[in-house]
């Protein structure tokens, strides 16, 4: 049976070159990077190389990169730390309705402690309207956090413009770029953001490693307290092998950026062309202008049927997609993102997300669309709802 993985936005396989660079750090260069003897210094050297490589990917200085355990931790850190540091200045944070749960749930946590959060609406394609950000800013606003690329519908926000609006009022700006790095050019100097979250496992690196870019000169407290690692900003013995893997993945992402983007968007476009033509009663969620969309992302609401059954039947044929409806297998309820862009619940229940990546081939497109057509037809036959009945 063919195996066609189409969920690169959920996670990516680790590239062989990346694994190969990691392995010696388990067994050979296993020292604690804080140790002063040779095996410790060897491990530390691995961290230095990795930091340089991540920095190069986003055009920052190496010392502006702080390694964390995941994108989620980076998001938590920024929000909690800015809240702690600027409490005396104000208690208001601005974000959007379509952020990742790592942002939204941390905001909800802060709300319990007296912070006020404005969740900006987005338009029908998921774009934050700059003028809405502008008018949401108050005297008490201490941070704006808007994601660079949405993980469900692929919307690429006008981060440079949004950061400028915040900075014009002297407000710090954070962006969650977990879905962005490696999938579009990201230059923190040009974007002029203060903080940026990243994660290795979305760019063919290992899971359990992330980073926070913090602009030089800005002081924020630690989130995880303890030893002096990461310039005393993130305690805990460093995940050396993981960080080395993140570094290598970043280097590859930088070198392959344009071929990766071209390849992904080409395959994605082929797939969408066939799907649009051959499967009736579907809607594309997210930007119609593909230049403003994650290069590998499709999010399709399929009328009359439910997403998980599509996912399962495709899985039976070796095809991996995710539903557009829930946060994870442990959570229920429909997608807050589809909800925010105005997709009715009934349609959101039938949404699937397809994200292509480096291993997706043109042949896969045919296999996937042929299968999807069959699955959709079969499930629609099973379904008590249809167009005539008004749904």
């Amino acid at each position, binding site marked *: 049976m063919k195996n066609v993985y189409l*969920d690169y*936005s*959920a*996670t990516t396989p680790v590239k062989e070159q990346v694994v190969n660079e990691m392995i010696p750090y388990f067994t050979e260069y296993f020292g604690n990077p804080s140790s002063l003897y040779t095996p410790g210094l060897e491990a530390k050297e691995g961290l230095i190389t990795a930091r340089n490589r991540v920095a190069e990917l986003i055009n920052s200085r190496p010392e502006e990169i702080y390694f964390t355990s995941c994108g989620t931790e980076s998001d938590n850190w920024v929000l909690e730390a800015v809240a702690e540091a600027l409490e005396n200045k104000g208690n208001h944070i601005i974000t959007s309705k379509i952020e*990742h*749960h790592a942002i939204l749930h941390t905001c909800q946590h802060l709300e319990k402690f007296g912070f006020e959060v404005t969740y900006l609406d987005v338009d029908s394609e998921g774009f934050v309207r700059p003028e809405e950000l502008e008018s949401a800013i108050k005297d008490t606003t201490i941070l704006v956090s808007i994601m660079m690329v949405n*993980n*469900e519908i692929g919307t690429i926000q006008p981060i440079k413009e949004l950061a400028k609006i915040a900075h014009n009022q002297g407000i710090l700006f954070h962006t969650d770029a977990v879905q962005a790095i490696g999938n579009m050019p990201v230059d923190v100097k040009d974007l002029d953001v203060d903080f940026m979250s990243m994660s290795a496992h979305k760019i063919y690196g290992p899971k359990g490693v992330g980073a926070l870019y913090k602009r030089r000169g800005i002081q924020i407290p630690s989130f995880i307290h303890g030893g002096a690692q990461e310039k005393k900003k993130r305690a805990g013995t460093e995940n050396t092998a993981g960080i080395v893997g993140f570094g290598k993945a970043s280097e590859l992402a930088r070198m392959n950026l344009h071929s990766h983007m071209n390849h992904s968007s080409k395959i994605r476009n082929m797939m969408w062309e066939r799907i649009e033509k051959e499967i009736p009663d579907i809607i594309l969620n997210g930007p119609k202008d593909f230049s403003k969309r994650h290069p590998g992302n499709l*999010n399709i609401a399929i009328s*009359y*049927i*439910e*997403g*998980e*059954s599509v*996912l*399962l*039947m495709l899985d*039976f044929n070796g095809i991996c997609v*995710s*539903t*557009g*409806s*829930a*946060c*994870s*297998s*442990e*959570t*229920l*309820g*429909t*997608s807050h993102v589809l909800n925010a862009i105005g997709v009715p*619940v*009934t349609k959101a*229940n039938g949404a699937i*997300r397809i994200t292509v990546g480096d291993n997706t081939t043109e042949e896969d497109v045919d296999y996937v669309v042929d299968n999807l057509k069959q699955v959709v037809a079969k499930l629609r*036959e*099973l*379904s*008590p*709802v249809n167009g005539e009945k008004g*749904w």
Partner: protein
Amino acid sequence: MALYNNTVMEHFMNPRNVGEIENPDGKGIYGSPVCGDMMQITLSVDENEIITDAKFKTFGCGSAIASSSMATELIKGMSVEKALELSNDKIVEELGGLPAVKIHCSVLAEHAIKNAIYDYAQTHGRKYAGLEGYNPDAEHHDDCEGSEEGGCQGCGNGK
């Protein structure tokens, strides 16, 4: 490891009794697409109150479809009286188990059958102890909106 066991997968991939009986003796719908699952059951019942045929149409996740398939299999050939006693536990048992978060799918099937029998009882002037006080429209929305397990859960792209 799989999300569902082989029996569930078999009923999902090759569901029995799919469709809609024309001029059914009883028809029940339960759930709604808003909640993420919806089932329609149609029945043929003979003069001895035996269910001679049952068909379903289901909007929902894998376990909702498998539960419908299994439930219709179970009630075919049963007396209406017996069918009213069919519990969701029995459906789960016959399926060889469902994940905890999916148990509500079997409840859905139980309710859809009850609703179909209720319709049969109404249109055929029958009374059953098992239907006493039963309100076919009552409960689903509570299940759906009230509880955390209110919809068929999907596999997330919240990642």
